[in-house]
């Protein structure tokens, strides 16, 4: 059985108004050419429960946009609203609680290498202070959902790329997030694995989760057509 999406949210899940992002130049560099705008003048809305592709060539700023949405990066300009909170103006202390309602599948997985698959998936629950006994069933259900129950005790370095990918998805979903962001979730998977991952994400969408999937694979989009945000050079194309 697939996890139910929690936190049913009516209205806009994400709203960007003229948002721009510029990374701080590396410490010590006073080169004015650094600090270029990576994203500029982004305005869009994602309704609650929607599914969106995030498309664009490499370097267009897809990961950067997802970082803004997951509150791992503050915008340099503009106003941002996520889960009904105007995060561009929110206090720093308000953000962790919001982040726990956002599931993220990172482009590079970002699994903790010293923790087993089980403990990696359990991490968001432990951060949220969930009791060990209650968490066990949830994590086991997740492992079964992504088909990796036999690998519960494996460390990430002992898993294949596709298996790590699925652990990352399970970790993103275990909290039943209202918003699920996936960055290149099929990046290094073969066709069979890709379809499998995509059907997991679609299942989350059917359960009511707002889903955004970044990819530069047009074939994937053709196989699963849906509305798309297209980025080119840090700007939205219409």
């Amino acid at each position, binding site marked *: 059985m*697939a996890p139910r999406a929690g936190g049913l949210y009516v209205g806009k899940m994400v709203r960007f108004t003229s948002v721009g992002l510029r990374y701080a130049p590396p410490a010590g560099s006073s080169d004015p050419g650094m600090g270029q705008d990576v994203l500029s003048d982004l305005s869009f809305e994602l309704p609650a429960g929607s599914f969106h592709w995030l498309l664009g060539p490499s370097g267009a700023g897809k990961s950067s946009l997802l970082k803004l949405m*997951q*509150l*791992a*990066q*503050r915008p340099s300009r503009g106003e941002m609203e996520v889960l009904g909170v105007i995060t561009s103006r929110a206090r*720093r*202390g308000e*953000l*962790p*609680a*919001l*982040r*726990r309602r956002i599931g*993220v599948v990172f482009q590079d997985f*970002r699994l*903790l290498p*010293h*923790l*087993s698959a*089980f*403990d990696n998936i*359990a*991490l*968001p629950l*432990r*951060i*949220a202070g969930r009791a060990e006994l209650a968490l*066990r*069933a949830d994590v*086991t259900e997740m492992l*079964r*959902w*992504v*088909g990796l*129950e*036999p690998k*519960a*005790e494996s460390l990430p370095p002992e898993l294949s790329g596709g298996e790590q990918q699925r652990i990352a998805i399970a*970790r993103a979903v275990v909290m039943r997030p209202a918003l699920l962001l996936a960055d290149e979730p099929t990046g290094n998977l073969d066709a069979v694995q890709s379809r499998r991952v995509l059907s997991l994400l679609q299942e989350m969408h059917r359960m009511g989760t707002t889903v955004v999937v970044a990819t530069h694979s047009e074939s994937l989009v053709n196989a699963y057509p849906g509305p798309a945000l297209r980025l080119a050079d840090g700007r939205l194309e219409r």
Partner: protein
Amino acid sequence: MPGTPKFTVSRWANRRPVLRRGRGRDPLGLRQALPGLLLPAVALAMTLLAALALGGAFGARALAQRWQQGAAAAVTVQLPDMDQARVARTLAALRELPDLVDARPMDQARLAALLRPWLGEIPALPLPAILELRFDPLPENPEGLALRILSVVPGATVETQGVWVARLVALATRVEQTALAAVVLVLLLAVAVATVGIRAGLAARQDVIAILHDLGATDGDIANRFAGRVALLCALGGAAGLALALPALLAFSGLAGSLLGRLPVTRLAELPWRALPWPWLAALPVAVAALGWTTAEVTVRGWLKRLP
């Protein structure tokens, strides 16, 4: 989900190796990031030093107090009898001495108490009159002073040992202050070393901390994990340091005891256990742990400010 392998929950839930069971509760990998040797070693050395300094401070204070009780005055002048008029005349003459701050006859009750061990309770015995003189600053040349007093009060007995006692008391007080300053210095040093260790731990776990942060961990969650581990390591090291300091402290105390006229120790039970400032010593490992905890909280929270 098609293709899902059919494994029962219990098979995997029950077979989790014991060694890995604790890992989920150490998601920061602090056991590697804050290796179990550096911080306890620092805490041990610092507690040892602080305990020795504390022992020195309290030993010096005890000596100063004892000496001060024995010699309330720098110089005593003993008159052969208690003739009130003569006492008054003598006091008036003595008040002309330079640097004299106080001159008074010794309280009769105190004099009787001082003499009781030698003379017993004999109320009828005529006591000599003893005048106590205090000087500030202490006289440079006690012997010259004694001669001068004799020229003013012929026939008196002058005792200047108190000058030496007062000098020792001043020295002991200075030693006590220096030792307490050393304790403070040692604790500050411990904070500095702990800060460096914690920063190294943070740098080693930078990626892991960033992941926990992005998954919604608060600064407090992360800082508390670090602080708990640091406090534990410091408490262990502190307790060991205190244990190591005890023999030296007891030896100190024994030496000080012989200065105060006690017999040398021949059995364990005779060691000056009760002379040690136990509440203060016991507070040391606690203080070191608390200091480690606070240092970790401040350092980690400060470091986390760089994350959004």
